[in-house]
């Protein structure tokens, strides 16, 4: 995305001179696609690549003639890593812009802040981040991978390779705690032992005492569900204490903020991660996607991860549903999506599972080497097993709850 002066002046004037809050008429022809993702503040390491790929998808759709003969108009809001702006922009998108679809949210907090609003205004909502699972809402399509999908594959593979004693470190909030519970379950199911589980507040940067505890516990491997910029220090300090040589790490969160580019090759080599997408997937569709993205984003193109690729695929998933429905009407598009609609994206086939509105998707395991991932295993068409345990939208399409808000036990899952 290059920036010239005219473009700058035009949009700066438009942004500042036109009071958006006053009543005004909108051009009715375009289809409105709104994206609300953090472009500044602490979460921008996740939000920026997601917006880049969303832009690219809409750009491509428009170049191919738009949808139903109409142009798709993309509007991007930056909630600045602040929940109150999520609520505001979601309301603005639904009631003001009259958006046909909203793709938004990174943290579960942001999703839960806007889900009720979009549901009330009957605005179709896509949430494209990997998260703890458990959303059961007819209006909300969650396309990211959930812990049961990735952990289920990662744990047995790494335990076979490295050994049965697992030390778990995770971020201290809902996502980390639920992921840690799934890890414990799958470790036990595969005949292993979780020697300890430790949770870290999101602003902790000092992991020394935990590293000592890991040394004392002598596990065969460490499972990490650490999240965010501050937690990236764990991997550095772990390597600085020489631990990466003796006790390897597996993770379902490392790499999604492009952490593998932030730490050096020596520090990261040998880690095994599981996602539904890696930039290094060797397929013609992905090779082409990566090449187009580099051309689109230019020199400063960020590395592609599951969040970025899924944002792209979700835009296409929605576009395909609009084509099949022959309309942008929410109910018709929802129906088309829930009829088992799927697309072939860079990650492979992505399909909506109608009981949960989550995605059936491929899961890849990959080993880190020289700051890039080598795919070592591919599991096709993985259903969202965790959410399926608590949610059945086919039986009751009126539901609109987040079942895992109080943890797994409150949702009736005893593991």
């Amino acid at each position: 995305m290059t920036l010239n002066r005219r473009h700058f002046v035009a949009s700066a004037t438009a942004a500042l001179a036109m009071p958006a809050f006053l009543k005004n008429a909108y051009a009715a022809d375009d289809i409105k696609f709104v994206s609300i993702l953090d472009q500044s503040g602490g979460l921008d390491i996740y939000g920026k690549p997601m917006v880049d790929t969303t832009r690219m998808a809409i750009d491509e759709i428009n170049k191919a003639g738009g949808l139903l003969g109409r142009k798709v108009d993309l509007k991007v809001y930056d909630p600045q890593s602040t929940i109150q702006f999520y609520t505001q922009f979601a309301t603005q998108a639904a009631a003001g812009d009259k958006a046909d679809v909203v793709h938004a949210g990174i943290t579960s907090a942001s999703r839960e802040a806007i889900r009720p609003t979009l549901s009330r205004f009957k605005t179709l909502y896509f949430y494209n981040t990997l998260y703890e699972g458990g959303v059961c809402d007819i209006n909300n399509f969650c396309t990211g991978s959930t812990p049961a999908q990735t952990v289920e594959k990662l744990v047995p593979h790494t335990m076979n390779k490295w050994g049965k004693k697992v030390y778990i470190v995770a971020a201290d909030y809902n996502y980390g705690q639920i992921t840690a519970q799934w890890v414990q379950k799958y470790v036990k199911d595969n005949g292993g032992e979780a020697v300890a589980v430790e949770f870290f507040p999101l602003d902790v940067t000092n992991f020394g005492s935990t590293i000592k505890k890991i040394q004392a516990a002598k596990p065969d491997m460490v499972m990490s569900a650490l999240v965010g910029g501050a937690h990236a220090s764990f991997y550095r300090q772990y390597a600085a204490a020489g631990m990466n040589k003796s006790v390897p790490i597996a993770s379902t969160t490392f790499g999604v903020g492009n952490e593998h580019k932030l730490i050096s090759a020596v520090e990261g080599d040998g880690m095994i991660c599981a996602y539904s997408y890696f930039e290094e997937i060797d397929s013609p569709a992905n090779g082409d996607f990566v090449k187009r993205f580099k051309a689109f984003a230019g020199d400063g193109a960020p590395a592609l991860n599951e969040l970025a690729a899924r944002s792209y695929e979700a835009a296409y998933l929605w576009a395909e549903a609009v084509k099949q429905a022959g309309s942008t009407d929410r109910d018709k598009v929802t129906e088309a999506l829930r009829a088992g609609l799927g697309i072939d994206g860079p990650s492979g086939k992505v399909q909506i599972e109608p009981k949960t509105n989550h995605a059936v998707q491929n899961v890849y395991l990959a080993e880190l080497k020289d700051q890039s991932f080598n795919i070592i295993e591919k599991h096709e068409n993985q259903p969202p097993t965790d959410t399926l345990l608590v949610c059945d939208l086919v039986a009751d399409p009126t539901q609109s709850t987040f079942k895992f808000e109080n943890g797994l036990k409150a949702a009736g899952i005893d593991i």
Partner: protein
Amino acid sequence: MRELREMKATWIIAALGVLFTFAAPSILELFTIITLAQVIGLAILALSLALVWGFGGILCFGQTAFFGVGAYAYVIAAVNFGGSTWAVLIAVLVAAAFAAILGYFVFYGRVSDVYLAVITLTVTLILFSLIRRTSGPEYKVGNALLGGFNGASAPPLNYPWDVSAFMFPEQVFYVAMIALILVYIFCSWLVRTHFGRVCVAIRENEDRAELLAYDTRLYKLGIFTIGAAIAGLGGIFFCIGVSRVTPDVFSLSQSALTIIWVIVGGRGTLIGPILATFALYYLTSTLGSQSVLNTNLVLGTILIIFVLGVPKGVVPAVSDWIQSRRGRKALRARERRLQRRRPSGGQNVGSTEGAE
């Protein structure tokens, strides 16, 4: 009731506020009205600091502590009672009680102004960090989950004593607007009462006020607690507007923003900080819907320009400007009169008298 008669400007502003409330649906978009509920919550917060700092002279850097305590108390109470009526009352009382305890330690411990500012900020930061560590099902108050980093969803407002009749967000706007106007009138009245005048006297010279046999600690504690109750009320509307309460209410940026609203609006006025809140909120959200300039870059620059260029705040600067214009006009008129009487010389006399 002498105070109520003195408040001519207040009544005019309040009337304008009422007018705006009624006109809002026909001039504003629905989404703006919905969003305004949370902005009004923030404006009430700014108003509370305008009272405590602008009139009480207490620089409370952590006014958001009471704002956040109010918001969390509302959510916890509303979830446990299943209705908002008592929850609102409880939230305001909890915020006030928290301030009374904190204020007791600080004022009766004779802490200096600078330390008061940083202690209140530290308390806020501690609350921020503590509440972020309450993830997991074990952190519950009654039926209400605290939610840690993710926060908890805030129950909507319902009609008083009718738990089944929830208000729509656009109706919350009216309630919030009425609350803002009433609190504004209350504050304006308060600073004109005997109590308010003593507070201003303490702000101007604490030693002298004490020598006049006023227990300054008690007065400070009083205005601090009242301010906290108002901040707590703001917190309630904010979390209802956002439909969620998260630890962000205690964050450093929220604390700093509150100070910024009061500085930009002007210390020693009540309406200034309210208007500044609306204006700066509009600015930040506008920056969020464009993607050319980095939001932080623009905000930072604006703040710095403000501190250097308009240090007193907009409302005092504007009223100074109007007064000095009036002053200059009067001065010129006097000079003309003098010149008519004494055609030669005599300018110097007038200019020293006219300048204030």
